């Protein structure tokens, strides 16, 4: 189950990443090419996933949309992880007052419910790819900070860290060279789930019309466009929805499997949650 999970997850993700990267080569049409007279056409041999209300090729738009969705997901996760590691390792390593202050900050960040802040920020800042990345990253780092801090609190009393400190190494070196490499594993697990979350969050914003703006293709935006044609053109709902779901399932599978194999030795029967 573990291995198949990683295998399936990775294959889907690699496929999607490659198809987004090589979208200009793979896409049979331009994602902006209009054919109003063929609007809402069902899948056919010339348009394998059909056409949207403006007659644009759905397959091409999915490929190009992947660039935005996956790109935003990667950017948000990388920024969140970096801030999280910075704040979490400072709090965990120094402890005491520094720790209390930073962790209260994390509490406040985490007490803003999910995507709400991102919605408001995207609305205030104006919808652009950069603003979406900023809005989602501001929310995303709290969880990572907490995980890293917890790990470091445990690890910092280990002998090798005491030895490194006793040798007179500066704190930055101890943290970067000795602590982080030993506590990074759970962050990688969180990051896998975080990617899925970020991609859904971006798609939610675009679905609400506050994310990626038309005519730029994005998976959430494509779903949003399909709202009025649920009966007439169900493929417009199915295709982008399935794509988003495939990505999220893959990241969740990956996260689950990584977590199971990382913690299998320690927690005994601890199961994926």
């Amino acid at each position: 189950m573990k291995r198949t999970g990683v295998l399936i997850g990775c294959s889907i993700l690699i496929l999607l990443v490659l198809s987004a990267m090589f979208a200009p080569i793979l896409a049979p049409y331009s994602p902006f090419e209009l054919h109003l007279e063929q609007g809402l056409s069902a899948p056919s041999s010339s348009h394998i996933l059909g056409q949207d209300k403006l007659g644009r090729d759905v397959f091409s738009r999915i490929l190009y949309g992947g660039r935005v969705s996956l790109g935003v997901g990667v950017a948000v996760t990388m920024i969140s992880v970096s801030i999280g590691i910075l704040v979490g390792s400072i709090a965990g390593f120094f402890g005491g007052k520094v720790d209390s202050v930073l962790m209260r900050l994390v509490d406040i960040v985490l007490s803003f419910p999910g995507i709400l802040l991102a919605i408001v920020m995207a609305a205030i800042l104006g919808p652009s790819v950069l603003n979406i990345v900023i809005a989602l990253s501001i929310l995303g780092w709290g969880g990572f900070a907490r995980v890293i801090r917890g790990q470091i609190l445990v690890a910092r009393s280990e002998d090798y860290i005491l030895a490194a400190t006793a040798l007179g190494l500066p704190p930055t070196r101890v943290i970067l060279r000795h602590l982080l490499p030993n506590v990074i594993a759970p962050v990688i697990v969180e990051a896998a789930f975080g990617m899925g979350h970020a991609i859904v969050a971006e798609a939610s914003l675009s679905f609400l019309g506050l994310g990626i703006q038309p005519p730029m293709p994005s998976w959430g935006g494509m779903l949003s466009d399909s709202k009025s044609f649920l009966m007439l053109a169900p493929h417009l709902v199915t295709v982008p929805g399935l794509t988003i779901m495939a990505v999220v399932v893959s990241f969740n599978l990956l996260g689950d499997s990584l977590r199971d194999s990382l913690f299998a030795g320690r927690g005994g029967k601890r199961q994926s949650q």
Partner: protein
Amino acid sequence: MARYLFLRLLSVFPLALGVATGVFFLIHLIPGDPIDMMLGESAASADRAALRETLHLDEPIVKQYGHFILSLAQGDLGQSFSMKKPVLDVLLSRYPATIQLALAALLIAITLAVPLGLFSALRHGSFSDQFILLSSLLGVSIPNFWLGPLLIIFFSLKLNLLPVSGREGLLSFVLPALTLGVGMSAILLRITRASVLDIIGKEYILTARAKGLPERIVITKHLFRNALIPLITVLGLQFGALLTGAIITETIFSWPGLGRLTISAIYTRDYPLVQGCVLAIAFTYLLVSLLVDILYAMADPRVRY
């Protein structure tokens, strides 16, 4: 216990203040003239003046912040531009719909998750366990803005069983609550399963079996009760997800609650109302986590500050 409750109650105030401060600075630290940013340059001058006055924009920021916190403490959230009514009144009129929807979703989530999770754990490793686990993976991963339209296509448009949108009668709750509840249900299922599996190997379960208690009693009294404790915590955390999920679900189903109000307030650039909606959702979330902590302390006597 009383001491714990008291301290926990007190802790709400700094968090609420933190959230309110966050919302205030979010809206005030935008570069450029906030009036232009909020209303657009073509806004009516009456609206501009009203907003300038509500936000006390001609005063220093510290003073503005003071005004904001003081009027918030008195329940004064300003006037909504688009509705021409006090923000608080608008919020109160929409609040029940969202809470009802969230509770219905919660009900669906729990009734699906707890029995299935228990069943799955008791048949650990079997085919049905694997199947339930796989379904829960799909349930966690399905975005509600996709599940909603799919349910509409199937149950409303194809089968014509349930209303497409609106909030009239019990039937109109089914699809929105399902859309909102499925993700949470999948998470709760996994927690239930994991926590039953965790407990099933404990000595007190062995003792209960060894003294010859019928399996039914072992499961209901010894296993199930203890397995519920982690569930309560997750319930609280997930309730926040329900509230924000409601923003999308309400938009899909034209549900007249806070979520759709937030989105329409954003579109009409009715910032006092946006601010009110954000505060209402964030405060509800804080209150729910308070409630959960209290429940938790009552369910598990070991929990203390």
